[in-house]
């Protein structure tokens, strides 16, 4: 059995009067790709941010390769250095070129010497086929190109896992293809990923497991085939119908 890379046990996130994440437990093993989907506002992004310790969970534990990140005294910066995060709205650093964006953490988190950091950053850009754009600023790139740089920035540190929060949903439909292609490449290389996405054909192709998320909690899990042919819960059934209809229209 392969090693568990990321795990959460009985995770809760409660804001003043809203429960965003309700008692969620999940595991992602080495080389596995898990895909979370569900209605908007159901807490998927919050869950991902809790797993990356960008938002502290209210209750429950998060583990990264067996190390508990939720107990006091953990060096969270060190932990975050081992987790890649790709944002829905990308958030590239405006004042840095594509290369600068990818290099930053290599220089200042991994403390690589300049030359080595540059080399590694170029490799990461090549992985997303953006090496030709290394010296362009984010504002000079299309949304799809920006997101590919965002992915390169997340994977340059060679993190244990990459968490992707709806990486294509802020992009124009004609630009999602190039990002999906990039993710497909990563999947082929055996990158461990936890993805929030509604790209169903992509999910069917690469996901080892799909997780249907609604009202802050996991409603149903199963293989893509399970969800595409015979989801058990009413909510998942309805949601899949809607998604499949939408995909056909596109």
């Amino acid at each position, binding site marked *: 059995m392969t090693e568990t890379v990321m795990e959460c046990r009985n995770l809760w996130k409660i804001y003043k009067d809203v429960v965003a994440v309700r008692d969620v437990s999940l595991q992602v093993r080495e080389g596995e790709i898990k895909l979370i989907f569900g209605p908007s506002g159901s807490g998927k992004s919050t869950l991902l941010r809790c797993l990356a310790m960008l938002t502290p969970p209210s209750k429950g534990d998060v583990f990264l390769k067996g190390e508990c990140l939720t107990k006091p005294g953990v060096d969270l910066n060190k932990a975050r250095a081992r987790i890649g995060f790709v944002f829905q709205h990308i958030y590239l650093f405006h004042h840095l070129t594509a290369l600068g964006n990818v290099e930053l953490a290599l220089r200042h988190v991994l403390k690589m010497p300049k030359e080595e950091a540059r080399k590694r950053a170029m490799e990461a850009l090549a992985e997303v086929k953006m090496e030709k754009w290394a010296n362009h*600023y984010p*504002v000079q790139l299309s949304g799809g190109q920006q997101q590919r740089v965002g992915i390169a920035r997340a994977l340059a540190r060679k993190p244990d896992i990459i968490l992707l929060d709806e990486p294509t949903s802020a992009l124009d439909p004609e630009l999602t293809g190039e990002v999906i292609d990039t993710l497909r490449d990563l999947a082929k290389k055996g990158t461990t990923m936890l993805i929030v996405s509604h790209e169903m054909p992509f999910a069917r192709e690469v996901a080892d497991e799909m997780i249907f998320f609604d009202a802050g909690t996991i409603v149903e899990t199963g293989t893509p085939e399970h969800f595409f042919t015979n989801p058990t819960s009413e909510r998942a059934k309805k949601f899949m119908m809607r998604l499949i209809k939408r995909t056909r229209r596109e």
Partner: protein
Amino acid sequence: MLDALQQFTLILNGVTSTIAISIISFFIGILVGLPLSFLRVYGTRGVQILIDSFEKFFRGVPELVLMLMFYFGIGLYFPFPFKNAFFTVNFVLGLRSAANQSQIFRGAIRGIGDEQMVAAISLGLSKVQSVLYVMLPQVIVYSTPGLGSEYALLVKDSAYSFVIGVIDIMAYTDWVRKATLDTVTPYLIAAFLYILLTFPIATWLDKWGSMKKRQLGLERK
């Protein structure tokens, strides 16, 4: 009787002081204002209240009152350093500018958005590193147009400093007026010199900053 050119050459002697005060207090403003703005945004409630009070005091009290207060009032108990007029002028204008600039920078931090900070944190950078490598460079670009008018304000406010004995453009202007009893030309000369010292730099900062902001796509959407 001095002709206009002679008056001009005399008053020109004050330019060095005026420029020195404008530049020194401007940089005190940046050096104090930048940390204040970040502490105001990311600091604890107590720190925020402290900074707010500092800003209210230096922005609320007229600079003339501040200068007289520090030079004569506080200078009575602390002759060093406040009995040095040049020091006190830079101290007062510098901190007043820090209070203004802190607000300019804070607007920039808000405008750039919290997401840049979150993205930096997500890479494993510490909070201080994120501020240093991600927020600070953007805040400076974002604020530059606003800093232009802040600089112009300092050049103009430096004119108050002659009341506590700094020998600047205004001090020379006053002497020339007294010596010649000409109440028109010296002021026209002073006005001309102040415009010359404010507009080119203020306009350049504004133009450069706006261009850079556009280039980086930093404009508020």
